[in-house]
């Protein structure tokens, strides 16, 4: 792309005006505000960060967030790769509908996600909730509910990365492997998986960022009990509203740090895969 930008006609003043407008827009909308959160987190040096690390409830919240995110990412990766293979390599009735439905979680409000899960798995009058609860399995206001909510919101991310790669790939190599006697598992592990590796990695990184940061859906299903079901994003809200701005900024800074790290990882590996 770079070598094609030479013609003199694109060197007019409007090019610099547009460049300036775009940079200013992104500076005021994203760069400066994000920088300020970092700055506010360190307003007392490392006091704020030390404060959250020494608070056992916040440490519990951070642990819970990480545990839930890892479980959610594993579930979504297995499901995502599996369903991508089915969508791309097989024909079955309702495929087009399924493919459209898989994108639904992207455009559903997190609050609606939470509500939907409560209506089905709620312990008091959900569709399945009372039965599950009498069998000793509490979903809503417990960790399984937080996992379900997190899996729901991050569901399409792996699929959206893997499907285009699989389509691009075609299935000639897989067919060759099969005709040489490899079974389905061998073909997947030796041929398909290495070829879609980068797509899967993007999907995992994006899902991880999304899972660590889910707020609305988790707020509805978790019950937000301090030291039990309160996650990191809920800590940010509670601390801010309770005038512990230092703690809120420090926790927000940690979350933002992970999010930005995920973005940078993706942007570093993406060009490699594109070429």
């Amino acid at each position, binding site marked *: *792309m770079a070598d094609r930008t030479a*013609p003199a*006609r694109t060197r007019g003043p*409007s090019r610099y005006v*547009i*460049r300036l407008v*775009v*940079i200013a827009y*992104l500076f005021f*909308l*994203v760069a400066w*505000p*994000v920088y*300020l*959160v970092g700055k506010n987190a360190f307003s007392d040096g490392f006091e704020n960060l030390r404060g959250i690390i020494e608070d056992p409830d916040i440490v519990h919240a951070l642990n819970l967030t990480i545990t839930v995110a890892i479980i959610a990412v594993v579930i979504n990766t297995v*499901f995502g790769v*599996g*369903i991508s293979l089915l*969508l*791309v390599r*097989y*024909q079955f009735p309702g495929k087009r509908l399924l493919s*459209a*439905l898989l994108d*639904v*979680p*992207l*455009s*559903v*409000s*997190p*609050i609606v996600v*939470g*509500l*939907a899960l*409560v*209506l089905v*798995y709620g312990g008091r009058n959900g*569709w399945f909730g009372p039965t599950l609860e009498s069998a000793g399995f509490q979903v809503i206001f417990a960790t399984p509910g937080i996992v379900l909510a997190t*899996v*729901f919101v991050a569901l399409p991310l792996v699929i959206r990365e893997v499907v285009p790669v699989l*389509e691009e790939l075609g*299935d000639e190599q897989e*067919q060759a492997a099969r*005709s040489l006697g490899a079974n*389905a598992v061998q073909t997947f592990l030796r041929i398909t998986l290495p070829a879609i590796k980068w797509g899967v990695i993007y999907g995992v990184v994006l899902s991880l960022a999304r899972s660590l*940061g*889910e*707020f*609305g859906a988790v707020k*509805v299903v978790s019950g937000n009990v301090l030291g039990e079901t309160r996650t990191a994003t809920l800590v*940010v*809200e509670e601390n*801010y509203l309770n005038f512990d701005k230092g703690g809120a900024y420090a926790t*927000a800074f940690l979350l*933002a740090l992970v*999010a*930005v790290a995920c973005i*940078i990882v993706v*942007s570093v590996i993406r060009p490699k895969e594109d070429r």
Partner: protein
Amino acid sequence: MTSATLAPAPTALKRRRGRDGRLTRTSGLGLGIAMLWFSLLVLIPLAAVVTTAVTGGWSGFWDAVTNEQTAAAIRLTVGTAFLVTLVNIVMGTLIAWVLVRDRFFGQRALEVLIDIPFALPTIVAGLVLLSLYGPDSPLGVDIANTRIAVFLAFLFVTLPFIVRTVQPVLAELDRDAEDAAASLGASRLTTFRRITLPSIAPAIAAGAALSFARGVSEYGSLVLLSGNLPMRTEVTSVRILSSIENDNLPGAAAVATVLLAISFVVIVALDIIQRRVVRRG
């Protein structure tokens, strides 16, 4: 989504046996398990929302949705999402243009900036905006608890959508037609309007649909920023949450159904647009 159109024509008879239409026993089982999980996680819960919304009958549903406060929230949400989408159509296209056609030092940093709103937890996004546009603003601008805050929050969280849908299309675009138009005397603006714009229009439309859907369903970034004042800065998601907290699940489900209907329309529109793009390509 585009598998049917992109699948290469089968060349050997042998490959017809293993795939092309038929599910093997293992893949059939896999599909069954996947569908079961997807139903338990997504389909049944969403069906429960719609079912609960209509349990009170049509009048109960209608009352919940046309309640003065709820109607104000829906109007604010849809109106703001629409305005933000308009801004994104212009700014998103400009940003995509700069990323693809311009070359300057630090461009890579812009790429990262654009993805930040996507990866940043929404509650942190609210805090981020509050630190520049809130009471402690170094700029001296305090828009917290106003409708501008809602607009700004939507603008932040929807930033990546149009940029990321237009960018790849613009990069793939053949520039010969543009060069030809320019050499025939078309001004830069005419060239853009007559040659470039028609090619990237479907991508802009797809991004606009996503950006609108995201705006309408936004919640987290508004919690700290907009103050959630009834009739003024309260958006639909906040309204649903307060119904849930007051244990009015049918009311919450009724408003949620309106949001689901909006998402559904957007997804259908997106599907149609994507199909058109594929056919052209």
